[in-house]
């Protein structure tokens, strides 16, 4: 057996990674399961221990009228009472930056005189408890989120709803000396109040002697139920407490009776006095006011009469003016007509004149032309004559005279010649008869006789010639003379003619000129006539104009006068109105004064009445621990964590078991030969199987222990830490959930061991001889895909191999897909949870409750005052919607009255506006839900929690009175619970008028940026007590929801780890099974990357398929988780965003890559020598 034991440890050593992976997966699932499972009991135990340590009261008594020492004594005397601690409580207001904060002031718990124990002992976190007057301690939850520090001072308003703070508590200012938390308040909820907007922001504690009241407000009691030893969350305790509650209620009836007989009587008397005083004052004031009103009315009438008269006068003047204006316009018309007429006439004359002028011009032109023509002719004739004349006298006559002279000369010459010739002849004849004289000797010598004869003959000839010539000349001469005379005569004749023509022309010219002159004269006459006409016209026009102007001036003056009259009237009117206004103001002031006085009296009266009212309906309330805000929630929250703890890890375990199964089966298969050998050697089946059993058991046990240790050490703290956002609890007290540990470890161990054993015995059945031979490798087989030939043909070689391998190892295929799908689903589940959480705020405040600011009204306001305030709200254009609402806390009991749910009952004054702010609709169909007068509409989560359906009649407490009503609608809502009804239904239900106390507003988009300013401005209004802005609320809501993100984070991390382990394991098996194959292909010369590709192709496909399957699974898981963690106050929309699916898918792939990357090195290390070894 020693060898066997050695064998086991060697096996572990040699297959470290397998051992570790089984261990890891068991550790992971066990750790997660036990870790989350530990959270819930740890949370509860922490609470239980805390309540025990701080001695939390079992019963809290509250009275509407307080308790006196007699009451306390009676309570003490009761059998079930163990200890009693009377205490004080008051709700006061702090104003800071115009924001009112309601603070609950508790008296510091003190040691009881009977048992010397402090009930509800606060835990001091920082600083110290108050030691003197003016000191306080502040609660830790608020301290952490506020700006307060130890040493700071809290300063209260002097008045709270008209009541002096000084009447309640000794100091107005308290210095913070320490920070505490108390078992009474374990959540951030601080309860409701009648002060301010109805909710308490935080509390402080001051020593009880700081309170002035004589009567205690709260009495804390520990009872025998608490001492009974039962756990305070147990049913036994609850039963006991229920019974005891009844006993205290019985006591309260006695005490109230006594109170009514004593204290109430005095108060009634006081009220009667006050009422009388008020009535007197009111009558007085009313009389004064009515007098004032009468006077004012008289004055107003007088003013009106006067004004009327003046107006009449003015109207008359206006009428007259109108008439003159009409006349003027007539005159203007006449004038215009006359002018027009004259103008026409003038134009005619002008036309005539211009016609005449034209004619004259034409005639003149004609005359001038003719004259010019005649002149020309005349001139031509004269010129001709002159030419002739000058020719005759200048040329012809002289020429002729010259010729005549010449001719005369010729004649003379001829006569002379004749004379000479006759003398010569004489001489010659003489000579002839006489000798020749000496001188003549030569000639005569020649031919003296004959020549002389000849000469005589020639001379005779000559003479004859001369004579002839002479005759001729004489003739010519005579003729010349005659011609000349003739020419002269002609000329003279022409001259005469010319002179005739001239004189004729002159005559004609004269005649024409005369005619023209006459025409000119006529024309001139016409001109002068025209001028006269024009002048006349102009004069007439000017005169008309002047007249018109005069009329106009008159009218203007009239108008001016009228204007003056009017302004005078206005002035007088204004003066009158001013006087009237002053009168009114005086009246108003007087009224206001009277009102103030009256109001004071009324307030007093009201106070007195209220006191009486309170006293009248005096009541004790008996509360058990469940009434502490958040007390019952702690249990619920713990259960919710438990739900998540159950869903997830079971899933986890399942995957882990599957992985172990594959791993162990593989291991046994690998050791087949060894099993055969051992069997052949004669070892018993049991001792052979023991090895595998022990191997599996060791891994599983170690894994469970390690996992549980880590899980329990981390997860409860992480989860409870997220809840510490909501709960103020001391340090977590860890409870180890042995049962859960046993369950998960058991499952893990059982699974692995069982699988190992079964697999081993499966092998052992085979005969050793067969066993020692290597198991025939799983034969290759055609897969279905190959029969789809067209597809198969188109696949490449590696794809074919991959496809065949995928289908060859069906178990591994299934395992991987399931494992991977599980991881993807877990991641998506986690993210889906986050999606659902984050979408709440958007859905709630953008789609369902659409408001920006809420104003709480002072309670004292009357209906009229509220109506007036609303009109102011409506008038403020920065608000797009305003709605007056009655908002009251109502309580639903469920679970056989064990649990109580506080929620707001909302009654909108105006349905139209109500529908704009509160969207009532069906979640799935988004169909509008009508609010009618037959019942109430509640939200979906509330209906679910109290188990109400549409049409059911539900019962609830409203303003401390029980009612029942029919559910007429169930509306979509996510954050908080609401009940809606109409004012009419409220009246029918309660018989009371609706008392409105809140204004919901939507800020117009353009004013969104100064929401704060608007709020501050409105806070100045006396009728407004508090304002809360959605934006600021939203932040804290989101913070709260964010706390769940931690759980999401834990989930995703664990899912990731699971993914890695599963994939690692499966890939490891895959590789181990195929070492020989891998070595062979390496020998064939595949590179490392090719080898990896050969193997990983399958892995990648399996991962993708698995992740794909995980998507719908994730949605399912998310839905399941969201359902599991529903709170009473919050409904999670079921939503998984696309991005979450994507992240889930992508993360899985990334984890797969990571595993592949790790495995790559392992594969690289596979020695090729393996391929040469024989098959084992």
């Amino acid at each position, binding site marked *: 057996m020693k060898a066997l034991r050695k064998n086991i440890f060697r096996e572990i050593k040699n297959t470290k990674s397998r051992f570790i992976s089984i261990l890891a997966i068991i550790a992971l699932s066990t750790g997660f399961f036990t870790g989350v499972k530990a959270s819930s009991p740890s949370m509860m135990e922490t609470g239980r221990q805390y309540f025990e340590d701080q001695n939390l009261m079992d019963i809290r008594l509250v009275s509407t009228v307080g308790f006196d020492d007699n009451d306390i004594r009676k309570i003490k005397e009761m059998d079930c009472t163990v200890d009693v601690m009377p205490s004080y409580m008051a709700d006061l207001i702090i104003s800071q930056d115009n924001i009112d904060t309601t603070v609950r002031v508790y008296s510091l718990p003190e040691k009881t005189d009977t048992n010397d124990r402090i009930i509800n002992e606060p835990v001091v976190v920082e600083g110290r408890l108050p030691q003197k007057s003016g000191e306080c301690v502040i609660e830790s939850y608020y301290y952490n989120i506020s700006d307060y520090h130890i040493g700071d001072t809290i300063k209260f308003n002097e008045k709270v709803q008209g009541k002096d703070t000084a009447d309640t508590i000794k100091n107005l200012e308290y210095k913070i000396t320490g920070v505490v938390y108390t078992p009474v308040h374990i959540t951030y909820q601080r309860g409701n109040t009648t002060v301010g907007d109805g909710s308490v922001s935080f509390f402080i504690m001051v020593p009880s002697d700081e309170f002035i009241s004589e009567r205690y407000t709260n009495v804390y009691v520990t009872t025998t139920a608490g001492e009974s030893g039962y756990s305070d969350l147990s049913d036994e305790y609850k039963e006991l407490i229920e019974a005891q509650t009844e006993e205290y209620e019985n006591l309260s009836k006695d005490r109230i009776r006594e109170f009514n007989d004593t204290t109430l009587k005095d108060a009634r008397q006081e009220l009667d006095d006050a009422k009388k005083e008020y009535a007197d004052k009111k009558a007085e004031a009313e009389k004064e006011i009515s007098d004032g009103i009468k006077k004012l009315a008289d004055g107003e009438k007088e003013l009106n009469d006067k004004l009327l008269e003046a107006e009449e006068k003015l109207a008359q003047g206006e009428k007259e003016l109108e008439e003159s204006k009409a006349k003027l316009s007539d005159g203007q018309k006449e004038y215009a007509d006359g002018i027009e007429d004259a103008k026409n006439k003038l134009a005619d004359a002008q036309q005539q004149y211009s016609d005449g002028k034209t004619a004259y011009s034409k005639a003149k032109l004609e005359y001038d032309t003719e004259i010019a023509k005649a002149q020309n002719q005349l001139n031509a004739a004269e010129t001709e004559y002159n030419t002739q004349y000058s020719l005759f006298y200048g040329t012809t006559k002289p020429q002729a005279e010259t010729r005549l002279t010449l001719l005369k000369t010729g004649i003379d010459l001829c006569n002379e010649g004749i004379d000479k010739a006759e003398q010569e002849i004489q001489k010659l004849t003489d000579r002839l008869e006489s000798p020749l004289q000496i001188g003549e000797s030569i000639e005569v010598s020649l031919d003296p006789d004959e020549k002389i004869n000849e000469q005589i003959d020639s001379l005779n000839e000559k003479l004859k010639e001369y004579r002839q010539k002479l005759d001729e000349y004489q003739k010519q001469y005579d003729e010349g003379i005659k011609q000349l005379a003739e020419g002269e005569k002609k000329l003279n004749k022409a001259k005469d003619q010319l002179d005739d023509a001239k004189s004729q022309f002159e005559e004609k010219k004269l005649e024409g000129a005369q005619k023209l002159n006459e025409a000119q004269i006529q024309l001139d006459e016409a001109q002068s006539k025209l001028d006269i006409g024009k002048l006349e016209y102009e004069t007439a026009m000017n005169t008309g104009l002047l007249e018109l102007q005069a009329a106009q001036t008159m009218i203007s003056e009239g108008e001016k006068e009228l204007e003056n009259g009017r302004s005078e009237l206005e002035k007088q009117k204004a003066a009158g109105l001013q006087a009237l206004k002053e009168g009114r103001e005086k009246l108003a002031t007087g009224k206001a004064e009277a009102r103030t006085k009256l109001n004071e009296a009324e307030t007093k009266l009201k106070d007195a009445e209220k006191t009486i009212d309170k006293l009248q309906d005096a009541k004790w309330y008996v509360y058990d621990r469940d009434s502490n805000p958040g007390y019952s929630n702690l249990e619920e929250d713990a259960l919710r964590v438990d739900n998540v703890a159950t869903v997830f890890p079971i899933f986890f375990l399942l995957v882990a078991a599957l992985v172990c199964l594959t791993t162990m089966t593989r291991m046994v298969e690998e050791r087949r030969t060894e099993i055969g050998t051992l069997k052949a050697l004669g070892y018993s089946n049991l001792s052979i199987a023991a090895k595998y059993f022990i191997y599996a058991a060791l891994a599983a046990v170690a894994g469970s222990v390690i996992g549980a240790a880590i899980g329990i050490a981390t997860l409860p703290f992480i989860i409870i830490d997220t809840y510490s956002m909501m709960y103020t609890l001391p340090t977590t007290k860890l409870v180890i959930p042995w049962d859960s540990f046993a369950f998960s470890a058991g499952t893990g161990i059982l699974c692995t061991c069982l699988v190992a054993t079964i697999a081993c015995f499966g092998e052992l059945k085979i005969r050793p001889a067969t066993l020692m031979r290597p198991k*025939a*490798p*799983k*034969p*290759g*087989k055609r897969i279905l895909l190959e029969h789809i030939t067209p597809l198969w043909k188109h696949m490449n*070689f590696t794809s*074919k*191999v991959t496809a*065949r*391998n995928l289908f*060859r190892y069906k178990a591994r295929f299934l395992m991987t897909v399931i494992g991977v799908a599980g991881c993807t689903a877990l991641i998506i589940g986690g993210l889906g949870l986050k999606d659902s959480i984050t979408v709440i705020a958007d859905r709630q405040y953008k789609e369902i409750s659409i408001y920006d600011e809420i104003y709480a009204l002072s309670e004292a306001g009357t209906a009229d005052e509220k109506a007036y305030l609303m009109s102011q709200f409506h008038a403020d254009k920065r608000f797009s919607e305003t709605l007056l609402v009655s908002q009251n806390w109502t309580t639903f009991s469920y679970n056989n009255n064990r649990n109580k749910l506080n929620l707001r009952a909302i009654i909108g004054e105006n349905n139209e506006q109500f529908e704009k702010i509160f969207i009532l609709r069906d979640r799935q169909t988004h169909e509008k839900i009508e609010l009618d007068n037959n019942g109430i509409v509640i939200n979906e989560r509330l209906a679910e929690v109290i188990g109400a359906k549409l049409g059911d009649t539900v019962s609830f407490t409203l303003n401390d009175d029980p009612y029942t009503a029919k559910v007429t609608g169930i509306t979509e809502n996510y954050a908080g619970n609401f009940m809606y009804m109409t004012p009419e239904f409220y009246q029918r239900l309660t018989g009371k008028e609706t008392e409105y106390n809140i204004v919901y507003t939507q800020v117009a988009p353009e004013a969104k940026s100064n929401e704060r300013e608007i709020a501050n401005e409105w806070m100045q209004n006396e009728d407004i007590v508090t304002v809360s802005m959605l934006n600021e609320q939203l932040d804290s809501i989101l913070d709260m929801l964010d706390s769940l993100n931690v759980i999401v984070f834990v989930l995703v991390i664990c899912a990731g780890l699971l993914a890695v382990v599963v994939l690692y394991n499966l890939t490891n098996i895959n590789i181990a099974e195929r070492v*020989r*194959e891998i*070595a*062979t*292909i*390496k*020998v*064939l*010369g*595949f*590179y*490392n990357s*090719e080898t990896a590709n050969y193997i990983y192709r399958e892995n990648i496909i399996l991962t993708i398929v698995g992740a794909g399957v995980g998507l719908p699974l994730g949605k399912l898981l998310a839905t399941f988780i969201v359902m599991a963690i529903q709170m009473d106050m919050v409904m999670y929309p079921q939503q998984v965003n696309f991005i979450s699916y994507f992240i889930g898918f992508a993360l899985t792939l990334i984890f797969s890559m990571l595993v592949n990357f790790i495995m790559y090195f392992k594969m690289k290390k596979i020695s*090729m*020598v393996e*391929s*040469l070894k*024989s*098959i084992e």
Partner: protein
Amino acid sequence: MMKKFVEFDNVYKRYKMGEVTINAANGVSFSIDEGEFAVVVGLSGAGKTTVLNILGGIDSCDEGRIMVGGKDISHLGGKELASYRRYDIGFVFQFYNLIPNLTAKENVELATQICRNSMDADTALDSVGLSERKNNFPSQLSGGEQQRVSIARALAKKPKLLLCDEPTGALDYNTGKNILKLLQTKCREDGMTVVLITHNSAITPMANRVINMRSGKVISNVINPNPVPIEQIEW
């Protein structure tokens, strides 16, 4: 004179087993000519598998030099060795090492798809006489047939060197003979250099060269001028 195709020069391979160092190859030196059918013979542990592993690029030597086809492979890196195996070496395993999930043809294709100059898978299978069983899975084939597929797979790569590790070790006598015949034919007809390791010295007469090993050393390297056809050998 034939060219020396494979040359081992003083090759050492040491395995450390805890504190003991085993010299699997203790100064091995020999050479094989191209086209020779060489048989490395020796008893178990003589170092013949080590020699084959180093020669096949499956293992590396610690010392010495190995020349294959004029290339020094003793100092190649992982990737270069893979290339060497891919393109230069054909390996025939004792246990065939067929991929069970692939048909005969696909097993051959597994080798051919990574080679540049490979033979057609069908041709390779035809050449080993397995034309009829191409589409059968290994589990549907007899041992001899499987070894033929293995040889076809090695041949299909058209390697320079065919290494056979006890190819008949897992086969019966006749089938073994057939396989040896196939190898001898391939060597003779295709001129392929074949190195075969065996512990069975009876088959040495069929070889051109017989290398005898003992204790990690070559004790004889004898050339057989007249190899005998396998049919004539009996053992």
